Structures are given as C-alpha cells and as structure tokens.
C-alpha cells in the first residue's frame, strides 16, 4: 500500500519546501516552478502563500508549496505558524503535503540538520536538499551524502538552484519518493523543550561531523566585506551613503525615461483633442480625464522600478540583515526593534508590503509600534507629488559644487519622515506600553551572494505590474470621478470665470477652505486632496485635471509651470510638509485594520498622522510667509 495510490485521480501530489531563512529556498522554488507559480494569501491571515507546479521527469504533475522560513516548528510568528500547520497537515485550507522537502544551505547545515530531525516527527516522508552546493564546493566543503542520508534516515540530494540543470537530481528523487511513498504515520511532534533542543542540536552536530569530508575554508569574501560594511563607523557611513545614492538615483536616473512617457501621453492627448469626429464632452473626458490623469501617474513608473530594484538588490545581496544590525541600537533608542528596519525600509516603496513584513517581529508591542510609524516612511506614491512640487519650485542648481539642490530637498523630505517616525515611536513606546524593554534582537546574517538577474527581473516586474494595475483601476476610477466633479455643472450662460469655478469640485474645495486657509491651501489643492485620500499620487493627476480644464490646452503637460505661476513658495512648502505626514492612503489604513485585527489602531494611525500633517503644514506655511516666501 502506498500513499501515491491513495490520492484521488487528478489530484496532484503536494511537495512542501521548508527551511531556515536565507537557505536559498525561494531561489530553488523559482528554479523548480519557473513562471508557473502564483502568490495568494492564506485565508484569514495575511501570510503570503506561494504555490507552483512542476512536472517530474517521469511526467508526474506536482504542486509545490514554498513555506515561510523557520528554524523550528515551534512557531513564534504568524508566518511560522503557517509553516507548522501546513507541515503537520493542520491547515484547514491546505492539502497536507505528501512529501516534505527540507532545504539546507550546503555550507551552513548545522541548523538545517536539527530542523530535519524535528521534521522527522511530523509523520510524513522527509527529504533533505543540500542547496548552493557550488558555493560549498568552492569553499572546499565536501559532504558524504550517503553517510549523511544514512545517519539522518532520510534521502539526501544536492542542488544548485541558480544553474540550469541544477535541480535534475532533486526532481529525480522527488519522483522516486512519490512513487514509493510510505504510509503516513501519525505525527508525534510536540514543541521541544530546551533539553530536547540541546539534545537534537548535539545529535545534528555529530551527524554533520561524521559526514563532512574536508573542513572547508571560511567564507573569506563575506568576512572581508563585513570587516568594512559592519565596521562601527565606516559601516554606518556606508549605509547612509547607500540610502543617499538610492534617493538621488530615484530622482536623477529616471528623468529621461519619464520625459519619454510624459511626451507620449501629451502626444496622445493632442491626437484625441484633434479628433473632430468625437463629441466635445467625450473628447474632454478622454483627454483631460483619462489620458492626462492616468498619464500623470504612469510617468512615475521608472522611479518606482528603480526604487524596487535597489531594495531587491540589497535584499538578495544579504545586506538587509547587516543594515538591521547597524541600525538596531539607533532604532532601539527610539523604541523600535532592529528587525523593524527591514519593514520600514520596504515602506519606502510602499507601506502596505512594509506593514505586512512586520510579521517578522514576534513581539506584539514591537510590531504595533512599527506598524504605527511605517506610513511615515516616504512611500513611492509620494514621489509623484514631491517631484512635481520640487521641480516647479526648487531651482535646478548645484550646491557645494556637486549635489543637486532638488535631490537635496528630496532627501530632506525623506529625512523628515524618518525623524518623524522615530519621534512617534519614541512617544508611543512610553505612552502606550510604558516600558522600554522589548523583544531580543537575534538575526542570522547570511553570506553575501551575487543577486541573480532573473530573480531581480521577476521581482521588479511583479511590482511594476502591481503599480500599473493600480493605475488602471483605483487611480483611473478616481480620475474619472475628479473629472466629473470638475466638469459638472457646466458654466452658466455668459459666465466670465473659467468653467471649473462653477463645478462641484470648486464647491467642495471652497467649503473646506476655512480649515485649510491657515495652511496656505487654495481650493484647487483642497479638491486634489480629497481623491488623494484614496491614493496619494492621485493628487497629481487631480491637479492636472483641475488646471488643465482651468487653464485650457497644453496646461496638462506643464502642470508644474502652472503651479509655479499660481502658488506661492510658502504654499508649495506647506503642501510638501502636509504630504510627509498626512494619512492619505485608504489601502494602508485597510491593511493596518486587517493586520492589527481591529479598528482601534487604524483610527489611532489616522488621527495622529492627520494631526501631525496639519501642524507641520501650518508651521511651514506661517514660518515661510514670515520669512517672506508668501
């Protein structure tokens, strides 16, 4: 009797990939499934669920599940709970795996072997894959795989996930294992105590010693790099330099591509504007609503791609854990956990993945503090707004001979967000928790690895697609709403003012003017801020729509010039200050509600951010005006 026969016909057997963090599990998953993978969420929780399909050499269709990395089945975070439940066959939505494949970094097997010993208690067939075998060989590490398999009592194969054909041996072994699956035994796993962990690690160490041929050389490249990158002073300086270059690049490198996209949309708008066969209203809708609106957002695609490229490179390189190490004490002073650095850095791209990434923080209070401040990190959706205002109001010249003034202002806005976040967490820690002690900081620092172009491309592509999808859905519908508000009702007969002055948008904008007047915001800004609640970048498109209709042909392409003519410098600076703090993103608030399991933290976040934004914009406007910029 074997389990392969127990499967209902048509149901593909499931193979679960389990392993320590940084063992190359995701690279292996990519190599096994290629583009035949999908990312979804486990029901009820927001843990990413990655499944893919592969066909074995024998023609067997197999479902592969990539589980979150863990050192133990003793789960401490929602991610690790998923791994435990799926492996134990307790996850309600999941078919229990027919085969558990434990992935281990061949040059760093100690902890993986202890995990294998633990996995043997789940009652399912287990296999060990020694991944990154090429790196291990280069370091002179030879492993007697037969001996290792014999001692562990599970099949052992090697793989090089990043090389073509590097997974052949693994695929063959999966075939063999699935053909002769032993009957699934009842799980006798229970959370190990300290004594059992000790015993298991000693046993794992003994097995490793018996199977190792050749002691291997230390990873000298990583050691040499760390001597500089983790140097107490030089390391911090380099980290700051990397961040500075990153933001300069986002601002400068994207420029030529952005110009091309912007010109493309202007050309498209002109074509539609000249299409005489279309009725006037439809022409205005397409040109001023759809093309000008969506175009003004899509133009920022190059910047978002560059930002994600940097973040993914740093992640794949293994630098993120170093950054957490360097920042732990500084962040700890503000009441944040060192591990919060990675979620907060991701929040520079978008607060949503950042908030979801806080799941790596085990302690609930540390996690809530991080979630609270994550939206203050300057996300990519703010870039369009910042870019527009900076290029309109800040002269494009160099200071100190080599630093662009515009880039410097951009850096200043990022810095303001960071300082704001540190200050808020400092206060939150004392206000909400009344404590300074927190979760211990413990993190493995992987060896440096050259990022694989293919996985970088896959990652950047997925993010770019998500952004474009947003531009096509949320942003497009918001643009249409703004256009409707700005176009109806039309100007009365014999009107002397531009048509938008009589529209619904103007009425709303005027209605809240008493509140925003002290900030220097005019009614056009008010109109743009309202849809900007749905997504920050919409405000740019909204301003374009409002001023395009207001100013006539050609204005949409040159929103910046129009703004420079219509706003004072004080107003522009106040709007920048507002955008550093304002809770202008409905999706972020929705994710906070979901991740914290209630409305309380969502409203707390909304309230404190709105208050900070108002105060910051008020102070900026009044001070700037007092200094003569009004």
């Amino acid at each position, binding site marked *: 009797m074997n389990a392969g026969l127990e499967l209902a016909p048509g149901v593909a057997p499931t193979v679960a990939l389990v392993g320590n963090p940084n063992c190359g599990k995701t690279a292996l998953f990519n190599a096994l499934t290629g583009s035949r993978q999908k990312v979804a969420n486990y029901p009820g929780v927001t843990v990413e669920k990655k499944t893919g399909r592969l066909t074995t050499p024998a023609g067997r269709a197999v479902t592969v599940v990539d589980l979150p990395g863990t050192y133990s089945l003793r789960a401490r975070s929602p991610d690790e709970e998923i791994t435990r439940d799926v492996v134990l066959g307790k996850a309600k939505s999941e078919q229990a795996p027919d085969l558990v494949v434990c992935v281990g970094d061949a040059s760093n097997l100690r902890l993986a072997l202890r995990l294998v010993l633990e996995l043997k208690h789940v009652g399912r067939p287990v296999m060990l894959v020694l991944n990154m075998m090429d790196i291990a060989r280069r370091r002179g590490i030879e492993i007697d795989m037969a001996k290792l398999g014999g001692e562990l009592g599970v099949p052992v194969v090697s793989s090089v996930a990043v090389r073509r054909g590097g997974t052949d041996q693994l695929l063959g072994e999966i075939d063999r294992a699935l053909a002769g699956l032993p009957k699934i035994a009842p799980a006798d796993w229970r959370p190990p105590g300290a*004594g059992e962990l000790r015993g298991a690690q000693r046993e794992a160490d003994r097995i490793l010693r018996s199977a190792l041929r050749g002691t291997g050389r230390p990873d000298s490249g990583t050691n040499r790099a*760390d001597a500089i990158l983790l140097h107490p002073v030089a390391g911090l300086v380099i980290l700051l330099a990397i961040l500075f270059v990153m933001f300069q690049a986002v601002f400068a490198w994207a420029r030529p591509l952005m110009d091309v996209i912007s010109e493309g949309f202007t050309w498209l708008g002109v074509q539609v504007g000249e299409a005489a066969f279309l009725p006037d209203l439809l022409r205005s809708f397409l040109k001023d609503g759809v093309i000008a609106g969506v175009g003004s957002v899509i133009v920022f695609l190059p910047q978002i791609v560059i930002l994600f490229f940097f973040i993914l490179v740093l992640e794949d390189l293994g630098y993120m854990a170093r950054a957490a*190490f360097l920042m732990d004490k500084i962040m700890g002073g503000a009441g944040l956990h060192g591990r919060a650095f990675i979620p907060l850095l991701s929040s520079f791209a978008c607060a949503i993945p950042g908030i979801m990434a806080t799941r790596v923080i085990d302690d609930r209070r540390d996690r809530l503090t991080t979630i609270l401040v994550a939206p203050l990190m300057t996300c990519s959706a703010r870039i369009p707004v910042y870019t527009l205002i900076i290029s309109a109001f800040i002269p494009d010249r160099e200071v100190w001979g080599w630093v662009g003034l515009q880039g410097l202002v951009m850096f200043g806005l990022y810095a303001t967000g960071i300082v704001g976040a540190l200050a808020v967490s400092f206060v939150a820690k004392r206000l909400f928790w009344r404590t300074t002690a927190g979760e211990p900081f413990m993190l*493995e620092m992987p060896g440096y690895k050259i990022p694989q172009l293919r996985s970088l491309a896959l990652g950047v592509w997925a993010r770019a697609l998500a952004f474009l999808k947003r531009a096509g859905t949320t942003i497009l519908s918001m643009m249409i709403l703004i256009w409707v508000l700005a176009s109806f009702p039309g100007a009365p007969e014999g009107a002397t003012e531009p048509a938008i002055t009589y529209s619904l948008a103007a009425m709303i904008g005027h209605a809240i003017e008493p509140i925003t007047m002290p900030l220097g915001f005019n009614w056009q800004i008010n109109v743009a801020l309202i849809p900007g609640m749905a997504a920050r970048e919409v405000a740019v498109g909204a301003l374009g729509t409002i001023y395009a209709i207001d100013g006539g042909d050609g204005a949409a392409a040159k929103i910046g010039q129009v703004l420079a003519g219509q706003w004072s410098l004080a107003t522009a600076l106040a709007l920048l200050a507002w955008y550093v703090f304002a809770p202008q993103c409905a999706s972020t608030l929705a994710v906070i509600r979901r991740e914290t399991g209630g409305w309380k933290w969502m409203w707390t976040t909304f309230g404190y951010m709105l208050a900070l934004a108002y105060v910051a914009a008020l102070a900026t406007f009044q001070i700037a005006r007092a200094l003569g910029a009004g």
Partner: protein
Amino acid sequence: MHRAPKQPSPCCFLPLAGPPAKCYYEALAMPDTSALILATLALGEAAVGFRGRIVALDMSRAHAAGLPRSELERRLLELGFVEGADVELLHQGLFGGDPIAVRVADATIALRRREAMAIMVVGEEALP
C-alpha cells in the same frame, strides 16, 4: 529521534557572584580546573576578536526583560548556541558596543549583549 537529553543540573543556576559551578563543564567532559574557571566569562562581556567555546547557557545571567527566560533559552538553542559550539565575536555596533555579531560554527548571528550575557564561554587559549 530526539535522544534523551542531558538536563542541566540545578547547580548551574547560581547567582551572578562567585566562581562558576562545576557542572558548567560536565556537558563537555572538561575538568573544572582553576585555569578553566578563571577563563570562563559571559559572551556578552567579551571583546571583539574573542574566540572560544560555549560551556553553558546560564539563563539566570540574561538581562532580557521582554521574554520569559525559558523562551529565550530555546531561541538561543535554535540559533545554534549549544554547549560545545565554537564561537568568535566578529563585530560590534558603534554605541555601547551593541549589538554584536557572533560566528557560531559556520553561521553568523547578530544579538544584543544583554541576551549574550547568558552564554558562558571559555577562551580558546584556556581550552584543553
């Protein structure tokens, strides 16, 4: 299969003052010579460049306030801090020399000094 673990005897959990107990070295079958006792210190107080071997996890010495001691002990064990493992203190942070990066066998682990106070080590020069 988990082998029957050797439970640390209660004498390992002594107050901070005084010389380390004999049982520190039992697990490693080391003689508790005075040279060894003198060379025993907490990893949390070691300097960069220190190389040695773990002789005990003494949770009574951990300064961690955010976590029950038994949980902290299990987390240290899961990251490979087990009696008998070789360690080297590779790097430390700028402020207060914290956190530290420690090589444990083949892995490099970052942790704070206050948790590393629980990891009792003997410098390599004193090892038999």
